[in-house]
Structures are given as C-alpha cells and as structure tokens.
C-alpha cells in the first residue's frame, strides 16, 4: 500500500554556447573533444513551421532551408546541462545564428590563421549582437604559424576579447578555451550588472 512518490525527474537548467567559424576550421572537432556524447548532426530545419506557414511571403522552398548543425552536450551534476552548437560561419546561414545566439552564454569563434577572413562574418555578428566571444585559433598539426598578437591585429577585435591558440583535438585545450570564454562572459555580465545598479554617470 506504499504509495511511492514517483521519482520526479526534474528537468535541469540548460544553457548553450555557440561554436562558430568558417568551413572545415575545426568546429565539429572542438565540440567532439569535450562533449560527453558523440556529437549529433542534424539537418535542423531552423525555420519554424509556424514562421514558414504564417508568413505568406515565404516560399515553400525557403521553409525547407536547412543547414547541418552539430551539437554536443556536457552535464554538470543533476541541475545544469550545457549544449555546444557548432554552426556554419557563412553569412547565408545567418537565419540560424539568431536562433543560436538567443540566450547563449557566449561563443567560441574557431579560426585558421591561413584563412582568417572566414571568421569575420561570425566575429561581426557576435560583436553586433553583443554576445561575448573568444577567438580560438586552431593550431592544426600543432603548427603555430602566427602569434596571438598578429591574429589580434588582423581581426581587430576589442582589447578585452580573448584570443587563444588551441588544438581542437585536445580535450584539455578545448576545456581551457571554454574556461576562458566563460570567465570572459562572467566578467562582462558582472560589469553590466554593476553598471545597471549604479546611477548612470555623465559621459
């Protein structure tokens, strides 16, 4: 007659981090190195059924727009889950970026020094959006062909944006970059919180 209160599986808090960058730059490898699951790839039809059908101007072709999206997961205890979304850096997938950036804790822009320009769309987007990001230069084959300073000069990001050299294949290296990102996001959020709670100073 014991009525066992069913073990309620409470849904944990979940957050996400975006891993962006040009094609073949190591986004999926980055996610795979740190994810607790084999990264899943989905032809995520990001355009909502709702949006697609409600808006008359959208053609059926447009509602079918898909882009491959890789994601991995890290579970922290029983109350927090982090999803890492690897997303194409090309401008034509910008419809997906809004979706991914919404509520994100930050972004890692993975770059390759041989074609840094491919990371510019992602950098521009996150700057405009005000989403904290770090630049992770993936050192393919352990080769470091440019210094952090050279990269920083080339991408011309704000001084507080961390630029890191890392190896997407190394878990410890990805973990270090992830830590730098979360620290950066936290600093930013604390500063914003302070600014919000102080009377706005005359500029």
């Amino acid at each position: 007659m014991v009525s066992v209160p069913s073990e309620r599986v409470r849904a944990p808090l979940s957050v996400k981090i975006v891993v962006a960058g040009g094609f073949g730059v190591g986004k999926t490898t980055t996610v795979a190195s740190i994810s607790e699951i084999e990264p899943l790839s989905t032809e995520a039809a990001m355009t909502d059924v709702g949006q697609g059908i409600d808006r008359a101007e959208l053609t059926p072709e447009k509602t079918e727009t898909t882009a491959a999206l890789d994601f991995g997961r890290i579970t922290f205890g029983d109350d927090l889950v982090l999803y890492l979304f690897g997303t194409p850096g090309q401008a034509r997938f910008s419809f997906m970026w809004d979706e991914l950036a919404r509520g994100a804790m930050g972004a890692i822009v993975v770059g390759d020094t041989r074609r840094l320009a491919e990371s510019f769309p992602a950098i521009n987007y996150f700057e405009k959006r005000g989403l904290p990001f770090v630049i992770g230069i993936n050192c393919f084959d352990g080769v470091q062909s440019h210094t952090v300073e050279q990269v920083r000069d080339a991408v011309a990001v704000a001084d507080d944006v961390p630029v890191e050299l890392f190896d997407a294949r190394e878990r410890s290296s990805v973990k270090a970059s992830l830590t730098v990102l979360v620290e950066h996001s936290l600093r930013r959020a604390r500063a914003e919180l302070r600014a919000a709670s102080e009377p706005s100073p005359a500029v």
Partner: protein
Amino acid sequence: MTSPSEPEPLLARPYVLTGGRTLGASDLPLEAVVVTERSSLPAGATPEVQAIVRLCRSPHSIVEIATHLRLQVGVVRVLVGDLADEQVLSVGVTASNQLDERVRVLERLLDGVRAL
C-alpha cells in the same frame, strides 16, 4: 526502464504532424530540456506525440528530440508546447535575460567547466 528499441524515425509532412497548427510554443529554445511527467498519454495521441513522451522519460532537449525522431524543430516545439500545457511534459528553465540571474548561471557554469 529503458525502452528496448529506439523509436522508428518518423518522416511525415510537418504540417500534418501538428494538425495544421502553426503557432504555439515556438519560442522554446533549442536547448530547453523536456521531461515526461506522466505516462498516461493524451487521448488520440499521434505516433509522434507517443514517441516524444517515450523519449523524454529520460531528459532530452528540443534539438535532441528533433534529431532522434527526425522531426523538424518547429514541429517539436508545437507538440512539446501542447504536451506541456497538458502537463504531460515539463520543460526546464533556460538562461534568462536578467543580469543577476545570468551572473549566477555563469558562476555555476564556470565551476562546472573548471572541474571537467
């Protein structure tokens, strides 16, 4: 405990799957985690709804549901939204826009990442 076999992939027109409806909880974030709260299915549950309820006996996010069941994200949002309204499922919290809350979550995340 775990179901003996993975649910069959479901392939059908999105519009049909949502009963022709297009609006609903379309704001559910991709990372929102969904958990089944009760096993009794709503009357007339479609195979897709049944599959979602079954899958979410262990927590799965919106994007994981879409991937595992091969459903469009938009379809999953509508169906999960309905099931949450009917309290068949519960949907976990995601990051809020409130700065103090964001700071708290980032602190927790930083602890977690450092301990990896």
